[in-house]
């Protein structure tokens, strides 16, 4: 017997899942960046902010569960679509010229897995296995003083920038927000969110390497 068609079985539904879960993750990334601005206010502010979050288990664990769910849905849909799209071409073109796509869009299947590896490393580095538990500021500054670790964070955030540039713009289109009168704003908004998160995040390792943030 055939099952009833549900939204997530269609390619469009899978894209909607990717768009909505992606927007949840971008929303978190904005909050994550804003919280990390405490680094510029010094050790007390940063560690105090971390204590404050840990003092609110429903918020902390609610966010973690939501993110776990969003990442799971995002990756599962991406894998399913990738598998499908790869088979859809059939034979390869000998000559192929791109007319409209850009670097960020063409490298989504690369920036995504790179980001996943980076996030796993980031969680191990600061959340799961920190060098000095409870001393967030010290962990971050000591970590970024190592050029190799700072380099990993810079590379990871560049991948994030490319991924969410296409991701945010693309998510608007996928959820159906396309109107000739507003499409310029749509692109501007995507660029603005992407620029704030990426440049902001990149500033932390660079500020430590430059000696602007010290222990």
């Amino acid at each position, binding site marked *: 017997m055939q099952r009833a068609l549900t939204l997530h079985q269609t*390619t469009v539904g899978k894209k909607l899942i990717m768009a909505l879960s992606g927007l949840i993750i971008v929303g978190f990334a904005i909050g994550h960046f804003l919280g990390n601005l405490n680094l510029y206010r010094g050790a007390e502010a940063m560690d105090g902010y971390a204590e404050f979050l840990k003092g609110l288990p429903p918020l902390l664990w609610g966010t973690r569960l939501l993110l776990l769910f969003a990442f799971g849905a995002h990756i599962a849909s991406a894998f399913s679509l990738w598998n499908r799209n790869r088979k859809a071409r059939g034979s390869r073109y000998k000559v192929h010229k791109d007319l409209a796509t850009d670097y960020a869009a063409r490298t989504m299947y690369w920036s995504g897995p790179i980001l996943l590896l980076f996030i796993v490393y980031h969680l191990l580095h600061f959340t799961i296995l920190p060098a000095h538990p409870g001393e967030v500021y010290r962990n971050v500054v000591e970590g970024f003083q190592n050029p190799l670790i700072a380099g990993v964070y810079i590379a990871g955030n560049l991948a994030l920038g490319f991924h969410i540039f296409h991701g945010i713009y693309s998510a608007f289109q996928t959820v*159906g927000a*396309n109107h000739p009168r507003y499409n310029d704003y749509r692109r501007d908004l995507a660029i603005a969110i992407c620029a704030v998160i990426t440049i902001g995040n990149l500033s932390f390792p660079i500020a430590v390497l430059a000696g602007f943030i010290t222990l």
Partner: protein
Amino acid sequence: MSDQLLNLTLHVWRQNGPNDAGRFETHQAKDITTHMSFLEMLDVINEELIEKGELPISFDHDCREGICGSCGMVINGVAHGPQKLTTACQLHMRQFKDGDEIWLEPWRASGFPIIKDLIVDRSAFERIIQAGGYISIRTGSAPEANELPVPKKDADSAMDAAECIGCGACVAACPNASASLFTAAKISHLSLLPQGQAERQDRARKMVAQMDAEGFGGCTNHGECEAACPKGVSLRWIARMNRELVRSMVRAEAPIESRDR
């Protein structure tokens, strides 16, 4: 206009049937006038091939006026060739220079099996239309012209979407061989008009299910389809298709079955 004659080198995909591996064959096009259309240039080569007792290059064509959607091939990596908003039949040889090398390939997609050389089987598009791209009408004498008022803005939008001639260039150009632009144009065209409302409830579900069942990929918003489309069908219709699908899913009274190819 220049009356210069062109001598070109063509690398043409030759494939004897759906199960043949296929290969490129090189042909010389000699003394081609710039006034010829691209298909006329192929006609000249084919006449020479026939005279030599060889099989002519098979390609699809019908109206040669850029409106039927029959012709189409990937010319130097671009569906319908280098001129924007132009079908292969309306592409003229003045777009090329003497001594150019031209690579000719069929649309490549699992949903469009190659029949022979540059001809692909596009009946998948017919099945997507059959799944839901129709309206129920009263047959018989022509209806009163102004019986169903249509706002000017809706009529214009519907016409923009209805410009799609179903040539398949969107599938050929898409990195995922997705048929989203075609399916979206058809869903949008009908959903905008009063005549399309009767089946609107199920249309998007049925057509998207069929599109997926044909083995086409999903949309990743690269915009290659829009850039390759000879009729300038806009990506905005894909956004509209997505909205229509959600609407169709939410409001549906009876579930429809999932389909396998």
